[in-house]
């Protein structure tokens, strides 16, 4: 029975492709953005339908399925393009076989549906798996990338280290901050650590709690932690929340924090004699000869 249907479908593939194309094209206007050019849409549809037919005739997994799903991902098209396309194919093919059949009873009808499902289902499974698998891969790569830049420590000069924090702090990151901070303080032998929260969008009680703990831990190993980059709106919300940050020094900007870090380490920034003056002096001395 299955072979008979398959024969009908393959012999009349042109008609079915035609019907499928029309249906998918009408879907384009509803579901997808109009930014996809007609030619690209047309050619991708052709490829799609070829993939479907080759998978039906071969009955096995083929490399073309992988290539095709990769292409859809690279184009950035939604997953619904694949599922819709296969759904339409299922409908169109079942319809077509029905019109080609002489006697139609419920048994025959269910046989047709069963056969078509058998062709389409493995394809749906494979395409969706490929598609979502590739997304998961991207997400996991990004997670690793994010983790790498989540708590950097920069030894700017002898005894002074800066930790710039950018973006949301979650529990995972808070742990990393604490570890990196303590490790870095020991490694670089820092007396002062500047923790910069200019890039942290929201400081709630959890974030504040972790900052306080980190600062306290830094104090325990004999260094000073200065919290810098507190924006005015963050200062107000911290006061509203009733969080006590009085145990360690805070500064509005990294610049001010750096200045006081220099003070703590008994140093200061001195302007060198300006170049122009020294050149003039040189010219003067030359003229004197």
């Amino acid at each position, binding site marked *: 029975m299955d072979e008979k249907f398959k024969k009908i479908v393959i012999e009349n593939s042109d008609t079915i492709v035609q019907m499928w194309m029309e249906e998918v094209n009408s879907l384009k206007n509803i579901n997808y953005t109009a930014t996809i050019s007609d030619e690209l849409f047309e050619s991708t549809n052709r490829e799609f339908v070829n993939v479907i037919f080759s998978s039906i005739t071969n009955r096995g997994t083929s490399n073309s399925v992988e290539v095709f799903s990769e292409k859809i991902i690279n184009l950035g098209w939604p997953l619904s393009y694949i599922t819709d396309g296969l759904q339409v194919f299922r409908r169109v093919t079942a319809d077509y076989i029905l019109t080609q059949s002489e006697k139609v009873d419920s048994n025959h009808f269910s046989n047709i549906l069963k056969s078509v499902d058998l062709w389409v289902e493995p394809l749906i499974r494979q395409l969706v798996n490929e598609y979502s698998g590739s997304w998961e891969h991207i997400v996991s790569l990004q997670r690793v990338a994010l983790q790498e830049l989540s708590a950097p420590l920069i030894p700017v000069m002898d005894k002074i280290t800066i930790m710039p924090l950018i973006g949301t702090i*979650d529990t995972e990151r808070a742990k990393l901050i604490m570890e990196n901070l303590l490790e870095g303080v020991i490694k670089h032998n820092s007396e002062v650590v500047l923790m910069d929260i200019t890039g942290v969008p*929201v400081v709630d*009680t*959890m974030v504040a709690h972790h900052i*306080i703990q980190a600062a306290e831990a830094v104090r325990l190993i004999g260094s000073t932690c200065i919290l810098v980059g507190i924006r005015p709106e963050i200062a107000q919300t911290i006061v509203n*929340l009733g969080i006590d940050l009085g145990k360690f020094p805070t500064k509005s900007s990294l610049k001010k924090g750096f200045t006081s870090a220099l003070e703590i380490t008994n140093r200061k920034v001195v302007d060198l004699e300006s170049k122009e003056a020294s050149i003039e002096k040189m010219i003067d001395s030359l003229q004197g000869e």
Partner: protein
Amino acid sequence: MKPQSCVNINKEWDIVGARQVGRDMAKKLGFGTVDQARIATAISELARNIYLYADSGQICFEVIENMQQQGICMTAIDTGPGIEDISQVMQDGYTTSGGLGAGLPGVKRLMDEFDLKSEEGKGTKIKAVKWLR
């Protein structure tokens, strides 16, 4: 009344999602940066409470209006263990999770209106409103 938008809280990163929705809404309504930060922080506290104590729940945002002014109303609903003694959790420094214990009293101070209803074993519903000045 404008339709409300809701964010489900199941994972820690959903807190960020909820904050984003609330902040966008506040910005559109014309709240200043300070009030935006206040609203975002309050959402963060409420969402974190759901995540920490109830595992999953929902935060809904709504634009509300009365005769004189517009405002943003957020409702945090969960079906967690509920709160035994409400007066206790509204005290500064009371915590069961080793945190600072400033979350709920802090939210009350950050927002203009605050309403907490909780039934033990059934869940908690917190409504907080910030008016646009």
